[in-house]
């Protein structure tokens, strides 16, 4: 069996290099075809009709006019008479037609009668949510009551983080053809290998008769795992239309209403500490919504990262609202937990008149990885120039522009998922790796190519990578930051297994044994002896009419034994902001992300992913918020006009610092898609508090909220 361990850092020729993603130019130039770009011959367009009411009973539905419209090929009712719809955007029916325009007009011709029922779409004021709440977690450890009594300082605050949506640029949906026997399926998915079973069940055919393919996908962030109702319905429309392909993608409004969201968290938190800044007790009451099902939270995860505080009293309530349902959002619940925790701790530090950095350093022993967080805090402080720029809360000068610094922390698992890879070596020397994974845009395709090239001992460019198809060996869904670990190991094993077979084939020609050979720099040679070598091409020619095909597999539970990958990422984000105290406008000067990331396959792509995560954090901290209206039950900003995301001018200077020290490298590969999207919100919120001398009680930190926190205006209610 080959030695699968990673080459030492200084011996890696392709892995660890700052290679630009292979599909970057295709994407930037529009040449890359996403499944939502596909327009095959005979295409039909499906349009979904959804509920205009936040809560209603459908009393009648009549599709006859829509069916009669010229160009309409099929109409299907999803929720008919007698069914209740529970949020604006709840699916009612859908139409397929020869053009999108006809489908839209036809959907409007479906007559639906509703009996409107009472709705609730706000959760911030828990007292107005009676009858819609349920207890969802309680934890008590130590003796919190006593700890609060004995504390030198107690700080109390309210912290809120609203529902935000995934806002995927490529909406949810698919192009699908289904003739009743076989289906060809082009979804936008994070789960190429795994989503076919439910589709098969949904349309009543064996999974073997489904072919799924996706070359590129335009953003999922956790919201694109399952087989959707719309996928199945689109397949049925196709079947009802003689098997013609049907394109069913949500429109922008629907995308923001029903394609998932991140649950809110509102909280009342009390924390206690001693004079020297040691955190001694935590008490929190939290409530959250993720739509009709309420919003969960792992109560035992509080306080976030600093979980080993001796005394805790935690209580969580889920609030059910008439709004679209939540889905996993990049590090589910962690950004919210990081935000409420780090803000509460920051307020305690301020109360103790203690520098926030010192406070965190003082309490790293309450985390699972004290040394890592200490290193990261110090490193971040150095980059952001903390010791020179820092001041105690509210001591940011007397001018109109006030500057402040803040800290947020993260933690995540990131263990590679199960994955299978097939590596092929052909007699002409060409090589290929194939796996049923997907590239969400973060560079999976490129990373696989790097690992394969490294193991084949070939240049990066010479490896062909096949991904994005359910006919390839099964690889896990891309969620939980599990992809890079999974695909790297399966690719490593498959390629080394294949190379090993090649060694066996050519060893006689080199007058040696297979286990004495190595593949380096495009040669098969006796280990350490370039003079006794065959070129890669010459070696492969020995295969004659044959080719080598070998499998490699990552089994997640074997990770610890194999040592190629691991879990447990930690990181620290620090923000530097300037606030115009007359207008409440916050300008982000700098956001620093120090991230532990194990062995890094491609630092450029890793940094790029962290940049993206930082930008998401900036959006969440300063702009992003779903605005639901209790008067009408509508989400008023289900668009990209008032659902605000940051642009280039808003993001300031982002500095990513990967922890590439050898001791980190030795840990093996860890996924970092999620951890880096966690701490930024807290860092920015804390920097604002530090700058203006007051806590803004919820994010996003808008001018309205800053002015209210400072007392410039009397009140705010939004």
């Amino acid at each position: 069996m080959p030695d699968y361990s990673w080459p030492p850092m200084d011996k890696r020729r392709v892995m660890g290099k700052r290679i630009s993603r292979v599909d970057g130019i295709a994407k930037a130039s529009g040449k890359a075809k996403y499944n939502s770009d596909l327009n095959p011959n005979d295409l039909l367009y499906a349009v979904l009709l959804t509920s205009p009411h936040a809560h209603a009973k459908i009393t009648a539905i009549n599709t006859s006019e829509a069916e009669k419209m010229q160009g309409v090929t099929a109409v299907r009712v999803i929720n008919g008479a007698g069914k209740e719809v529970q949020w604006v955007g709840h699916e009612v029916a859908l139409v397929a037609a020869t053009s999108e325009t006809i489908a839209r007009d036809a959907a409007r011709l479906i007559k639906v009668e509703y009996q409107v029922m009472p709705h609730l779409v706000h959760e911030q004021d828990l007292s107005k949510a009676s009858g819609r709440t349920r207890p969802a977690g309680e934890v008590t450890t130590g003796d919190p009551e006593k700890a609060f009594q004995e504390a030198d300082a107690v700080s109390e605050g309210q912290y809120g983080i609203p529902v935000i949506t995934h806002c995927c640029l490529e909406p949810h949906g698919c192009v699908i053809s289904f003739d009743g026997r076989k289906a060809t399926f082009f979804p936008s998915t994070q789960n190429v290998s795994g989503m076919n079973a439910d589709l098969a069940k949904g349309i009543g055919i064996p999974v073997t008769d489904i072919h799924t393919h996706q070359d590129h996908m335009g953003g999922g962030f956790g919201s694109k795992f399952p087989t959707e109702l719309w996928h199945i319905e689109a397949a049925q429309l196709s079947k009802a239309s003689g098997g013609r392909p049907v394109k069913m993608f949500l429109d922008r409004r629907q995308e923001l209403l029903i394609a998932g969201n991140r649950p809110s968290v509102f909280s009342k938190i009390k924390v206690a500490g001693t004079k020297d800044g040691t955190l001694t007790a935590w008490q929190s009451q939290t409530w959250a919504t993720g739509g009709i099902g309420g919003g969960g939270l792992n109560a035992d995860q509080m306080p976030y990262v600093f979980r080993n505080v001796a005394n805790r009293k935690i209580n969580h309530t889920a609030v059910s609202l008439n709004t679209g349902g939540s889905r996993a959002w990049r590090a589910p619940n962690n950004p919210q937990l990081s935000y409420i925790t780090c803000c509460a701790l920051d307020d305690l530090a301020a109360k103790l008149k203690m520098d926030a950095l010192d406070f965190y350093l003082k309490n790293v022993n309450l985390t699972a990885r004290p040394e890592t967080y200490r290193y990261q805090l110090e490193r971040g402080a150095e980059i952001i120039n903390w010791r020179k720029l820092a001041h105690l809360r509210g001591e940011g000068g007397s001018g109109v522009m006030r500057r402040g610094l803040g800290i947020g922390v993260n933690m995540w698992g990131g263990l590679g998922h199960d994955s299978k890879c097939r590596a092929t070596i052909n007699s002409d020397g060409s090589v290929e790796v194939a796996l049923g994974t997907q590239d969400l845009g973060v560079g999976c395709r490129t990373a696989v190519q790097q690992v394969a090239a490294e193991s084949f001992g070939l240049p990066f460019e010479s490896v062909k990578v096949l991904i994005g198809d359910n006919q390839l060996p099964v690889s896990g869904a891309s969620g939980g930051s599990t992809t890079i670990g999974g695909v790297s190991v399966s690719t490593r094993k498959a390629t080394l297994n294949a190379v090993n077979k090649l060694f066996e084939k050519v060893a006689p020609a080199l007058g040696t044994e297979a286990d004495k050979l190595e593949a380096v720099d495009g040669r098969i040679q006796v280990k350490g002896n370039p003079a006794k070598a065959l070129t890669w091409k010459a070696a492969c020619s020995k295969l004659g009419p044959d080719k080598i095909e070998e499998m490699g597999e990552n089994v997640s539970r074997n990770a610890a034994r194999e040592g190629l990958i691991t879990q447990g990422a930690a990181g620290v984000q620090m923000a530097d902001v300037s606030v115009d105290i007359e207008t409440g406008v916050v300008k982000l000067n700098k956001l620093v992300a120090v991230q532990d990331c194990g062995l890094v396959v491609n630092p450029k792509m890793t940094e790029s992913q962290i940049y993206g995560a930082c930008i998401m954090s900036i959006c969440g901290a300063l702009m992003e918020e779903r605005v639901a209206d209790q008067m009408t039950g509508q989400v008023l900003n289900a668009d990209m006009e008032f659902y605000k995301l940051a642009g280039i001018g808003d993001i300031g200077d982002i500095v990513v610092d990967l922890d590439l020290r050898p001791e980190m490298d030795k840990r093996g590969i860890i996924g970092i898609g999620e951890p880096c999207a966690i701490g930024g919100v807290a860092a920015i919120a804390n920097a604002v508090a530090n700058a203006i001398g007051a806590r803004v009680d919820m994010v996003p930190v808008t001018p309205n909220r800053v002015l209210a926190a400072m007392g410039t205006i009397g009140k705010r209610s939004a």
Partner: protein
Amino acid sequence: MEAFEYANPTTLPEALKLLGGSWSDAQVLAGGTDLISMMKDYVVSPKRVVNIKSVAALHGVTQTPKGVRIGATTTLDELASNPILRAQYGSLVTATLGITSPQLRNMGTVGGDLCQRPRCWYFRNGFGLLAMKDGKSLVPGGENRYHAIFGGGPAYFVSPSSLAPALVALGAQVTLQSASGSRTVDVANFFVAPKDENTREIDLKPEEILTEILIPPAAGSQNATYEVRHREAIDWPLATASVSLKMVGGKVAAARIVMGHVAPTPWDAAKAAEWLKGQSITEATAEQAGAAAVEGAQPLSQNEYKVQLAKVSVKRALLAAAGKA
């Protein structure tokens, strides 16, 4: 969107003939940055769309003895980069550059900026311009963080035009042409706060086209615009102020102060302007003028902050106009 007829006239008389007696008969398309999206959302569904960008006579900026004439289909980018305007009407250029996204400035037109419909999210979500339900506006009890702080209803939307406050402060006029003739209206009077759902927020009739804007000679006036925006990327201002000052011997001889995005129309702070007369512009007088400008504001449940933003906008616009920003 509903099917519609598309007309592409090349002369003004031809274009005017294509219009109808009601907004549902025909609507004018210039940049298309707003009309098309409203049609796609079924907020408006005209039977005919009349593209006026092919009417050459409606395009361009010219200096005349009476002032600067700006053709309605001049793009916002052309406006912002025009040397005459840059030299004399900084307030207008700043306001134009506040219309973020170069794409919008490349496509959007001056006439379109003045005639665009409000961005009120109740209106855009199909609840009507006044968002009335059972005889009452939804806005005061609803989500009103971006709504008006002046005017007192029943219209609570804010005038979306970025250029209007600057044009009002500069004393500009618009020419409105119909098949039967033309009329000239002060930009200040072009905007109206509707009292009922059937009144439009601008004094334009369905059979008319806004053909040009005339800005009187600057004659040494000092002007500036300041806007408070939540984000630098594409966004609407939260509040703006445009001012135009005539200074004699370091003192204000005449002033116009007009706030934007605070009312259903550009909001002329005449009393504040009157108070400024005879003052020199200092941090203190600018601050006082700002306070005077927002006197009588009637904020709603969520938008008291806009009073502060309007006040600061006035102060900062005054200081900028006086070269003290």
